[in-house]
């Protein structure tokens, strides 16, 4: 502002203008400070409110709860086992959005049976699609690098060809949750993002020896829904598997005992670790499925404390015969 400029405001009016400006700025400063006043106190975790991470997709209609197929061909065994339970249509309705939790833990070839077999994953995707599922999302938070796991196991390609989608977890896909009644899953990152809109959940995993837990089957498979530094849960492996059983109630699970990893689990690494056991279990009760699976490893459910505790808590039955499992033989291919 130059007083010699005739266009300029007179000094008095200019002073008044500035005075009003300053007063407005003082008021704005006060208002802003009041608005921001201690909105987020230091160390305040309320911004990342902990959610209830439980997922219940258990089927609402009754019917047989377990079938055991024997054979050599995974897709035929799956077909046979599902038909025995009333067909895939009993579980998957047109328009369903299905998530399939595979075991893609390691970036190793399918032949080593350390991961869900790609043929089985693909067969499951096709069945869901045929039953009218509008989308089928396949996911896992594996131990090795996720992209490598899905590609080297062959699961990625098989799923895409069968009409499914893959979800590879990133840090942002997890959300901190606390399992009600849980002691271990407290304020812990649990896979959350891909569950949006999901109406059905299927777990599919091979029967494996596991050094720490004794055996890794359908319940241990839910470990892949945990994020963070989850390996500390190995300090109480039975406790965490029981809490996973509390966390997830699937539509059904598929336990693949076509081959079982008898030793050197859960990675295996040699065909010598595997034994042909010619069995595939489909069950709405993961505890029962795992109890049967333990027999393929020459164990019983009593050798696996997590199964005993899960059964005691009423999360399923370890006495699988009480479910009157339907035994079918799949025709050889």
């Amino acid at each position: 502002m130059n007083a010699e400029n005739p266009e300029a405001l007179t000094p008095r009016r200019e002073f008044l203008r500035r005075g009003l400006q300053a007063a407005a700025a003082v008021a704005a400063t006060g208002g802003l400070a009041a608005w921001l006043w201690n909105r987020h106190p230091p160390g305040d975790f309320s911004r990342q409110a902990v959610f209830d991470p439980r997922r219940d997709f258990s089927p609402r209609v009754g019917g047989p709860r377990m079938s055991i197929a024997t054979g050599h061909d995974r897709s035929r065994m799956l077909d046979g086992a599902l038909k025995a339970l009333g067909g895939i249509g009993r579980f998957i309705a047109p328009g369903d959005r299905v998530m399939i939790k595979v075991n893609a833990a390691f970036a190793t070839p399918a032949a080593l049976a350390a991961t869900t077999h790609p043929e089985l994953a693909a067969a499951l995707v096709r069945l869901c699609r045929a039953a009218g599922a509008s989308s089928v999302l396949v996911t896992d938070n594996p131990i090795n690098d996720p992209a490598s796991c899905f590609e080297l196991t062959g699961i990625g390609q098989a799923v895409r060809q069968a009409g499914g989608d893959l979800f590879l977890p990133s840090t942002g896909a997890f959300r901190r949750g606390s399992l009600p009644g849980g002691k271990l899953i407290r304020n812990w990152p649990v896979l959350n993002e891909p569950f949006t809109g999901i109406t059905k959940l299927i777990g599919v995993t091979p029967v494996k020896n596991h050094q720490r837990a004794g055996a890794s089957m359908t319940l241990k498979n839910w470990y892949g829904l945990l994020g963070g530094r989850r390996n500390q849960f190995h300090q109480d492996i039975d406790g965490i598997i029981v809490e996973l059983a509390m966390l997830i109630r699937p539509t059904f699970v598929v336990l693949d005992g076509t081959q079982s990893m008898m030793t050197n689990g859960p990675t295996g690494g040699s065909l010598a670790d595997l034994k042909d056991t010619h069995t595939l279990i489909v069950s709405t009760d993961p505890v029962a499925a795992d109890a049967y699976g333990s027999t393929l490893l020459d164990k019983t459910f009593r050798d696996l404390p997590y199964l005993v505790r899960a059964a005691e808590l009423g999360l399923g039955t370890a006495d699988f015969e009480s479910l009157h499992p339907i035994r079918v033989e799949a025709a050889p291919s």
Partner: protein
Amino acid sequence: MRITTARRIAQGVFFGLFVWLCIASAVGTGWWQWRGWPIRWFLELDPLVAVGTALTTHSFYPQLGWALAVIVLTLLFGRVFCGWICPFGALHQFTGWLTRKWRRPKQRIDANQYHPAQAWKYAILLSLLIAAASPLRRTAMASLQTGLLDPIPLIHRSVNLAVLSVLGIGSAGERFYSGAGLIGGLFLTFVLLNLAVPRLYCRFVCPLGALLGLIGRLAPWGIGVRKATCTECRLCDLNCEGACQPQGPFHASECLMCMNCLDDCPSEHPVRYLPRPSQGGEIPLPGISRRGFVASVAAGLVAVPLARLNGSTARNWPAGLIRPPGAVAEEEFLARCVKCCECVRVCPTNAVQPAGFEFGWEALWTPALNYRIGTSGCQLDCIACGHACPTGAIRPLSLAEKRGQAPFEDSGPIRIGLASVDRGRCLPWATGRPCIVCQETCPVSPKAITVEEVDQPMEGGGTVHLQRPMVDPARCIGCGVCEHECPLSGVRGIRVVADNETRQLDHAVILHHEK
């Protein structure tokens, strides 16, 4: 009394107060030690601390309320803080004043001419504030780096850790600070540069001055000139601290309100303190060049994302970085810490140290515990650091919360790390000699260090009874007393890293069994 005399008194009083509060920043029972003295006061006054933390945390920390008073003062009267209150400013002014006899008036007037490079401080401020707002963030929170150059944290850090220690004043004479050479060297450099250009830091570097210049550029009152009586003698530039050209065109944002021009203006007194605007014309802000603007915005935008590419706030977090008890989770910590080093100064055992570049440049001059340099580890019944922190980067804990006593039994004690025995160095484990100093000095009850009793055969026959130490991670709080006391004074046989620290959920080592 002349207004400049009043200003000199104010500067003297505030500088004296500042030095006094630095001396008093020591835990102890003496009257001259920290017994209710408001040792954080200058930091609480600092608007750049308040604005910076508000940008990073989207919250105004109530402890910083004094900064609002300075903002209001500046809105109405311009950069009074710079000319009358700032202790760093007073030091610059005093150092520059020492040179007045060496220079002829013409040289002094020339040295006080406005220089376009005075716009640099606005570029610096812009970069720092953009980094604090960090719209490109890869992570939940931004990084507060204003403390690197904010004069109030800078002078606290420098006087507390370097000047007082070198001069041996108070308890400071017996203390060690890693990297204090850099802190003191930069301080000395900035002070001595006044011998070349008066108030060089204030004019060209100071981001707080730039912020206050922005806030105060439209203050209704200020220095002005009455054209009718001004002879354009330029005597108003003789002692001008801000290089703001009182005779016009007046660079309003550069005026430090030193008022020297009122003294130096000859008889008719055309230069006065007036309701603005000045008749000599005004330039409210120095023009940052377009290139300068783009460069500083770009620097501010990419600095934090680039710094975090090293994973130091993610999977590659530095295990040796042990933060003081009560420190908030690392991302929020970096969003709050202004690098004033008050916690470093008040730590009674000298264990809290200013970090150098070893934990990434983002963490420069933030507090990290070092259990070798001090007189002990983190004391069990001490909560001084959190109460010295002006911004809540370290929460002001109660003793009960730190110790995990009622009503904090459920959350347990604050853990800042985890000790582990190096069985290749520990005397009983590695050499078959009895020791267990670590176990004896472990301050928690029951002790976090347990011993395994063995009778080990000796080379010449017979056995030696050994107690071999082991650490229980459920009890260890990471205080480092064991590491400090370990008789292996080079590389200790028991050492603490930040594993299992409470503040960072994802650093947990053991399952916490909730009661």
